[in-house]
């Protein structure tokens, strides 16, 4: 039935995935849904990502 679901996932770039799972998808209100409570969610996560990746590679030149 549903096999090999893990394999192709590894090839997906995280940044492409975050573009979609954090900015796309239906937003519904739950009791804990951060998706609507936090318009900044995308921002926060991308900042996390940029900082982490930046720290791994070279310092980001234009970082304030």
């Amino acid at each position, binding site marked *: *039935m*549903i096999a090999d*679901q*893990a394999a*192709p*996932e590894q090839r*997906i*770039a*995280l*940044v*492409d*995935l*975050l*573009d*979609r*799972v*954090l*900015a*796309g*998808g*239906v*937003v*519904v*209100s*739950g*009791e*804990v*849904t*951060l*998706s609507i*409570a*936090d318009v900044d*969610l995308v921002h*926060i*996560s*991308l900042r*996390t*990502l*940029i900082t*982490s*990746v*930046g720290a791994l*590679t070279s310092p*980001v030149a234009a970082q304030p």
Partner: protein
Amino acid sequence: MSRESGFWLYAVTDSPPDMWAGLSGVAGEPVQAVQCRGLGCVTSRVPLAEFGEEALRRNLEDLDWLTVTARAHNAVIGAVARVGAVVPLRLATVYIDDERLHGMLEDRQAELTAALDRLRDRTEWGVKAYRIPVGRSEPEAGRPETGTEYLHRRRAALSASRAEDTSMHRLAWDLHGDLAALAVDSRRHPPQDPTLTGRREVMALNGSYLVEDRRAGEFTDAVAALDDTTPGLLLELTGPWPPYSFASEEGEP
């Protein structure tokens, strides 16, 4: 009264749960169905110690956690999308009780059913375009002799780079138009940060296209052809994706 677990939501589908229930989801928790009026909500029971509001805020800033969770979320939605129509939910949607979850499904039944029909047999594809740096011929060699000459050269260089930007934007819009013509819907995401793409080239287009499954081959062929015939832009195809960018009818910002 405090609760210990909640429901992580992946997606809404109308395909039978026996096709996908039991998959392993976020935090390794099994995927289960919450059924309501013909709609199946794809969920996992998750501990609120890790997925409650406060914990989520903290965890979303942890890259390792975010990576594992986003991939698990995507893997489940991708698996469900392979067996039927799916409306993905945004990452980090957690309900703390199934009564409210049922309430949401009831309230939004018409809208979610319409979305399933709109997305059925259609798939999202991503196309990113990078500007290939043009081998700019070096302006006059040697140091400028006068201040006026310096300013003149500086202005010429600036205007050349502005013209390059303008032409890049025009190329990107044309490209987007060509791709959108092969799709039933399209969106442009903000260009990605070069730190994250790992490429030095400027990203001119970060598009998503909702394509009829029967036209998928035509679309991917067109991307390859446009890559060959669009001078100055390098194209990169991603997907197939569950229709994240088209889950809401209105355009995403």
